[in-house]
């Protein structure tokens, strides 16, 4: 008998007999009923509380603000995708600027050290947000791969205000995540941090030191 069979046999032939599964009542994690204003206010409050920076922008001229952010932060090398409208618009707007645009849609093996050591920021789309916890949710794609939001010291996330929902449960259920998960799904709340040295908060321990959310309004 394999280990698998032995373990499953022990679990199935439980000494105290079969167990009854209780029902779960999920009402406490849903049904907040917030207005769009309340939702936005909560999102901003909570993401700010974990060191996330929110910049309100309009969909029409968000790339102008992106350029300003890059200038303020002194970013010279920006990694980004190509196909997603966020990446395409950013590329178009920054094409003639001084910021070097680094292609993120490449096999990581071909540019790992460049990504780890030279890229100063990554800009990427976010599918949505969670008001209750001030979180972004991302499903990385070949165009905007997993490490784009992790390796560069600054993560610039582009999020549409109307894509913010109340709770994580609402997102998972509303978007029917269970019907088909991507290889990697991420919930991100703030920049990378640690309190492992005597409870003192320090940012950017492994991932980004800064998270800037360009929150796009219609």
């Amino acid at each position, binding site marked *: 008998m*394999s*280990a698998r069979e032995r*373990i*499953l046999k*022990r*679990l199935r032939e*439980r*000494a*105290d007999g079969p*167990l*009854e*599964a*209780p029902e*779960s*009542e*999920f009402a*406490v*994690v849903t049904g907040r009923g917030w207005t769009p204003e309340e939702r936005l206010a909560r999102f901003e409050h*909570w993401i700010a*509380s*974990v060191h996330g920076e929110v910049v309100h922008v309009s969909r029409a001229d968000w790339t102008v603000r992106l350029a300003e952010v890059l200038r303020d932060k002194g970013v010279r090398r920006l990694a980004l995708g190509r196909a997603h409208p966020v990446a395409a618009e950013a590329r178009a707007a920054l094409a003639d600027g001084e910021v070097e645009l680094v292609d*993120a*849609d*490449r*096999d*990581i093996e071909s540019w790992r050290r460049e990504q780890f050591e030279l890229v100063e920021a990554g800009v990427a789309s976010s599918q949505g947000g969670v008001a209750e*916890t*001030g*979180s972004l949710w991302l499903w990385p794609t*070949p165009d905007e*791969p*997993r*490490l784009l939001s*992790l390796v560069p010291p600054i993560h610039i996330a582009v999020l549409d205000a109307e894509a913010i929902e109340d709770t*994580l449960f609402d997102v*998972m259920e509303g978007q029917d*995540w*269970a019907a088909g*998960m*991507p*290889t*990697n*799904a*991420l*919930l*991100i*709340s703030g920049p*990378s941090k*640690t309190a*492992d*040295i*005597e*409870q*003192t908060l*320090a940012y*950017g*321990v*492994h*991932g*980004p030191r800064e998270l800037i959310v360009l929150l796009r309004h219609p």
Partner: protein
Amino acid sequence: MSVQTFTPRAFHEQAREALGNPQIRANFRSAMDGLMAKRRDSFGDWDLETLRELGASIRLRALARLPDLLERLEANCEANGIRVHWAEDGEHACRLIRELCEARGARSVIKGKSMVTEEMHLNAHLEAAGIQALESDLGEYLVQLNEQTPSHIIMPAIHLNTDEIADVMHDKTGIERTRDVDAMTAAARAQLRERFMAADVGISGVNFAVAETGTLCLVENEGNGRMTTTVPPVHIAVTGLEKVVEHLRDVAPLYSLLTRSATGQHATTYLNMISGPRKAQEHDGPEEVHLVLVDNGRSGIYQDDELLDTLRCIRCGACMNHCPVYTRVGGHSYGTTYPGPIGSILSPHLMGLEDTKDLPTASSLCGACGEVCPVKIPIPDLLVRLRREAVGEGRGNVRGAGAKRSRAELVAWKGWQWLATHPGAWRGGTAIAGKLRALTPSRLGPWTEYRTAPKPAKTTLHTLLKQRRHEEKDA
């Protein structure tokens, strides 16, 4: 690498040493005070009781369907391209993991935080096979550099203060001595980034394994977990088999309970949900993902209706943060991978009661652990159950049951039982004790090292009331 060793057999000695160390006392006290306050604040506007009920029901449902869910998890993981392996015990799991490493010719492993790999001493096993395993969670990294084991399941280096960490970073990594936390963090970032790039295999734990979708959920703040599971070409996730949950939606409340209970955060920086290796068109992520399901005593716990509740645990550490004993003796005193209240009800199953018999009694049964447990594990009741097992009066379902059996103690309790079931003798005995109160020794073993000896009253309540009745009759 020689690791500082603690053993549960030496709980008393280790606890005494920790109690006598003002630095350890101060480090834990201030850390636990902070964590308790943060937890309290984080649940401020929540219906905590209802949320805990939900958390408990999710875990109980998963356990009720455990064998089915494990098969479903396996099938869905495999369909997603994640290879699933089953390990009977820690040694078996170590062997499986080593073989996976060797199949890739791996020399260097980078690790995300995983208590189950601590439980099976994976690092030592890999190193014996010539494979270097480096911890990447900052706390784990510091503890490993300091040749220690974690003293807390969430905050591994909580026993060290900034000065001690400054020494470790300077002595072991050669950086200029600094007690600037940002500078030390930046130095560790640089050191570990090299190791992420060079690693052949990344090994992580799992917080929730979702049967419905074949998804592995990792909860973290640092990003080292994402690095570990994304950068190296192979990712091996290791988990105790009880960590499975039925549905993806079950993760939402458990995640909230976990982060708020553990560190008082409304969310951690990352909730990383992995449902497969890199697909053909993708540009990063591991080529192989493996899931090792570890039993190591868990299916034994599963047999018993009462002990089963131990397996609800989501490893938040709130029970230790709120434990007055843990706060004073620190994590290492327990000499087990899992310290504190949860460790005292879990370790006997993993290691046997012969080695761990002093842990279930290392609690005043104050109930703080059970009160804060996000999945409502009745920890005090389980401590009492293990005390029964230890003295041989339980159902004998625990390895090493009866390890604390003592003829003398049993005789003493039998004597007490006789007295307390013979009211006349009880009244006589207690009355005599009062008469002889002058003879009460002023030193009563360890009690009087800290307190004055209690003296029986001159007259018992029984006698006082009898006297009162007589006086009333006379009047």
